[in-house]
């Protein structure tokens, strides 16, 4: 009986329990983002915010579809039997000539942007970009210069996120890398800088 129905059933079970893991090395990306953000902000003339308590290094970010409890037990058993297809710890490479060039370009621009961060004219948004928060603090003659600085900075930031994803062989990671950077920028900026969260500006 088992021969007739058991093996097909077990095969079905095995195939039904395949879990697709799309790994994004969140911890490595966070570490890489922090290195770049600190490196860029050190030229803003003000020490970056001390890093918050480092998160415990947990497993990398993955998306799991939650199975029905009935399958869970079988899944646990199968986990023992089926080797994990991709378990190697991923790393994020940020040491490429293009990334170095973008970092340098952003670094050089920080000195010019920093006074406007402090004045509250420019803040950091949820997309990992900088944004003009209010032009009222900016003398009329400098407004278009500041707008161009912000546009140039965002051009570099967009290229940086895209290039980190590309350099690591996963262009599809750009969105996750951007989200990671968006969070790290806000964590690392000095007190007094402005950032946008859920559509509202807040002062750190």
């Amino acid at each position: 009986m088992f021969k007739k129905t058991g093996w097909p059933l077990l095969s079905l079970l095995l195939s039904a329990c395949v879990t697709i893991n799309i790994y994004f090395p969140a911890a490595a990306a966070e570490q890489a983002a922090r290195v770049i953000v600190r490196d860029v902000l050190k030229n803003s003339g003000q020490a970056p915010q001390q890093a918050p308590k480092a998160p415990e290094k947990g497993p990398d970010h993955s998306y799991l579809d939650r199975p029905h409890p009935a399958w869970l037990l079988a899944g646990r058993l199968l986990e023992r039997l089926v080797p994990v297809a991709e378990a190697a710890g991923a790393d994020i490479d940020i040491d490429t000539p293009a990334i170095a060039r973008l970092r340098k370009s952003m670094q050089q621009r920080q000195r010019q942007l920093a006074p406007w961060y402090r004045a509250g004219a420019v803040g950091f948004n949820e997309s990992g970009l900088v944004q003009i928060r209010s032009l009222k603090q900016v003398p009329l003659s400098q407004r278009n210069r500041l707008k161009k600085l912000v546009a140039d900075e965002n051009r570099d930031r967009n290229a940086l996120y895209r290039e980190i994803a590309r350099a690591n062989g996963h262009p599809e990671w750009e969105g996750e890398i951007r989200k990671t950077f968006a969070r790290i920028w806000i964590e690392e900026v000095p007190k007094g800088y402005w950032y946008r969260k859920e559509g509202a500006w807040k002062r750190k």
Partner: protein
Amino acid sequence: MPLLLALLLFWAAAASAVEEAGLAAASVAGAEWRAEGVRLRLLPGDSGRAAFDLHLDRLTFPALDLEAAGLDLSCPRLRLFQEGGGDCREAKLDFALAPWKRVGGGLEWRWVSGRLALALKNFRLGRGRLEGRLEGDQDGWGGNLNLEGLRLAPLLSRWASGWSGSGALSLAASGSRRPSGGWKGRFRLAASKLGFSDEEGLHVGEALALSLSGKLDGGKRPQGDLQLRLKRGQLYLDPFYLEFERPLTLNAEGWWNEREKRLHLERLTARWPALLELSGRLDWRAGGLREGVFRWRLADLAKGYALLLQPLLIGTPADALQLRGRASGSITLGGGEPRAFALALESARLEDEGGRFGFDGLSGRLYWKASAPASPSRLSWTSAHLYRVALGGAEVGLRARPHRLEVAPFAVDLLRGRLELTGLIISGLPRGPFEAEGGAELAGLSLKALSAALDWPPLEGKVDASLPRFHYAEGRLRLEGDLVLKLFGGRVVVEGLTVEDLLGPAPVLRTRLRLENLDLAQLSRTFSFGRIEGSLEGWVRDLRLVGWEVAGFEAELRSPPHDARRHRISQRAIDDLTKLGNGVAAGLSGTFLGLFKDFAYDRLQLRVTLHGDTAELDGAPGPGGGYYIVKGALLPRVDVIGRNRRVAWKDLLARLRAIQLKGIVVE
């Protein structure tokens, strides 16, 4: 109300025994006004003289959104004439009117034979002072007023919510009304050190000195002319910033049709000395620009670009241009859209601040029409550059069609050779997104000139190439077909070339290369790599340059099977190849092999794969797990066998750079 007052006065004058008369009403209303808490007190005097006080708790004009409170009008000496009418020379009027606390001053009136003359004297509006006269009868009215020192801040707080301001205005105006119903007037509004801002700070004036004057002639179709002169100060009208080091004068002359809601400006001019001259006309109907025709001339293209064009281009690749020279042109607008334009450039210079491109001695005339092919255009330049590669002068014929621009084939000197553009079409005009496509031929390009322009090690030879078709859209350049470079006696075929984010901070170039029958003698002579004779073929796949620097590739270079060329390799070439593999030379000269100038070889083969910062090396299968880079032949036989399969890309580049090139060490 005036009727009531007149009756009361008449009655008081007739009843001289009355010492005081009074009238009170809770409210009195007219068609467009309402008075509340009305109290009138009349004090008759001798010889037709009288006095009165009128108090209103509140007087409102709902249609005008005006409300005066605590209004007091007093006339201490009211004269009443026997033939009718009267006058009052020392009346006082005082009331509260937002935004001012109190408004008031002297008032005079005279009413004789149906003609009324009114005068305001030293009338206070906050800190402002108003003087004025109004006189007329059923045949018409005329008057004038002078207002000095009227503060802007209270006006904005009352009538422009969210706006703030500073400074004061003065106004002089006069006007008259004819019995036919027509009217005419003139005014001059002036201000100095005027400041204003909206809530967002997007419309701001600072330290402005200006005057606005005009003549208006009303009737069925009001018409007139206005002149605005901005003499000093700064203006920010997002995204434009204007600083008036020299006065800007704007003139407009036209008429208004109330029924059609149509504004027609027959003459519109702007004059900004040493910068801009503009003239034109426009027709505005029902809230939209129906038609506008303007001619303009920019005497200073650099300043014109910075003030008028660059603010619109921020965030695009054209937001960092340096321009010089002069330009003039015209533009026609219709239905809010551009319909036609003409542009004439005179000895202009255009330079990208990022050094990506530049043109000098730009001259020509460009024409474009939205609805039909425009007149032929011409553009010429005396010199140009693309990155650091210089281009010669050229004269180009262009033809603008409604949505595209066709560039006629033209040739330009490039690297001691010629670049011939076999046709270029730019589409997506006038609003974008822009696309470009065309083809090109390169003939006799000097590698020596190219290497000098790009600071590369000096190369030798000429390149002929054909670009069958290229296409550019949304920042992505794509080569359709193969780019065939004829060099080193063979061919290098560039396949599937694309460049993304071409004008961005980190352009990404991807391509594949196929190397066919290259003559190693010419190649090694060019690179001075030690002499190698023979042929070379191979491929480069997944070549990726980011920011014009190599970011990854997989390549194989090898001797072709059945090679017709002689296979010889010099001692120095072996040293150089060994250096490339190990970082140190083989040192053959120190052995008996140093007696031989060169050696025969069977085949060359080298495979390099760059992943991240590491290059993996490989060659023909060799003994002991090694790989042949050079597999020797005959006697004395020299093999170059690689053992190290992984090397840091930076080290490999450093080794390449350290190889001596004709006595020059490339750093």
